[in-house]
């Protein structure tokens, strides 16, 4: 079973040289710590920066330099700052190569829900709806089940949707799943997790072909 960092590390393997990447709040943010050797990517944050660097050294925080998670950040040489309309022009115009975000639920048709629990939690969609409606390449980073052990990998989302048919891949603490025309295909198992464990923890139907290899993380 992976922890949050493990999930980030596995997704980092998907990065390709020269890509522009938007990382959501939570687990996705951790991906920046695991960029493979020899791969150069630029991170966009939808509040208006491209070329985001590491967190500032203590005492060097600048209230005017934050990411979309409102964390203090730095800018790398070659970075650019822009307004929100330009930022979403990049996103909506499909100039971003990879979007990674968290989710409350993902369904086998690629639907995603991550912004609202009716009558309980309404934080808003932020930039997520623009991101999922536009991106060609969306990976969801999430725990396979909620705290009660209930699957978040579903036949059909029960919560209000963020986007329809958009998710391409899901990386959880238990598995890597591709969203295919016929539903979720199990691609990899987390270390120490069996195919049976995954089936047991999953509400959605899984397509399983031959031996499912263990992730290398």
């Amino acid at each position: 079973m992976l922890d949050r960092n493990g999930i980030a590390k596995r997704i980092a393997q998907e990065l390709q040289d020269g890509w522009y990447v938007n990382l959501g709040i939570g687990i996705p943010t951790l991906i920046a710590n695991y960029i493979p050797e020899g791969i150069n990517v630029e991170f966009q944050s939808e509040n208006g920066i491209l070329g985001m660097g590491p967190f500032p050294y203590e005492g060097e925080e600048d209230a005017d330099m934050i990411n979309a998670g409102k964390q203090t950040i730095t800018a790398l040489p070659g970075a650019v700052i822009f307004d929100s309309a330009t930022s979403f022009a990049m996103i909506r115009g499909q100039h971003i190569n990879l979007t990674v975000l968290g989710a409350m639920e993902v369904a086998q048709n690629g639907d995603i829900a991550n912004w609202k629990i009716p009558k309980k939690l309404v934080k808003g969609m932020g930039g997520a709806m623009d991101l999922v409606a536009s991106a060609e390449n969306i990976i969801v980073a999430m725990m396979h089940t909620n705290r009660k052990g209930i699957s978040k990998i579903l036949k059909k989302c029960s919560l209000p949707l963020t986007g329809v048919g958009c998710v391409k891949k899901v990386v959880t603490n238990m598995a890597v799943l591709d969203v295919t025309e016929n539903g979720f295909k199990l691609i990899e198992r987390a270390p120490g997790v069996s195919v049976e464990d995954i089936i047991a923890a999953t509400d959605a139907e899984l397509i399983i072909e031959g031996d499912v290899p263990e992730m290398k993380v």
Partner: protein
Amino acid sequence: MNKIVANAQEAIKGIQDDMTLMLGGFGLCGIPENAITALVELEVTGLTCISNNAGVDDFGLGLLLKKRQIKKMISSYVGENAEFERQMLSGELEVDLIPQGSLAERCRAGGAGIPAFYTPAGFGTEVAEGKEMRMYNGKPHILEEALTADFAIVKAWKGDRYGNLVYKGTARNFNPMMAMAGKITIAEVEELVEPGELDPNFIHTPGIFVQRIFQGEKYEKRIEQRTVRAKDE
């Protein structure tokens, strides 16, 4: 041309109950702190506020929420604010949640005389309910309308008496589009400079979009998520 007014109180003159305001900022970054304080003092109520976020309980728009001056919020993300959540869930506060990119583009459209445009964001979700849908490039899009406001209030780093503005870092965010979309646009700046000091090639908001400008008395610039690494990392 001289658009300078003495202070925040002067700048917000004319703002009345039940008006629609736009307020720049992302989280607490780049928000018009001084104007918000003046609005609290003015005790106007029934406001509709268009702002990406709703501040926190004791700063930013949270101050107006606490005093129940806001009737309706039009935002994209409203976490981090317990009082907001309480008012919304109890039905005291109307809330219209909009995808962040659509919010930014709708403000720009309002300022640019584009009454409506198609976007893929929100298709198949609650956001699309009641909106026109059309296929473009094989993908469904929904029709979104422009947003404007009686007053737009933005925060910049430097500005001159023509209303030309320059922002610093990610404090830019929604400010430039909202500056375009106000019937009257108020800009508060950290520093007023002489015309010509701002390089004409590098002005973020041309003065034509700004009607009033003042230098804010002080800036707290509160940080929501102070995240740092140790020096020896």
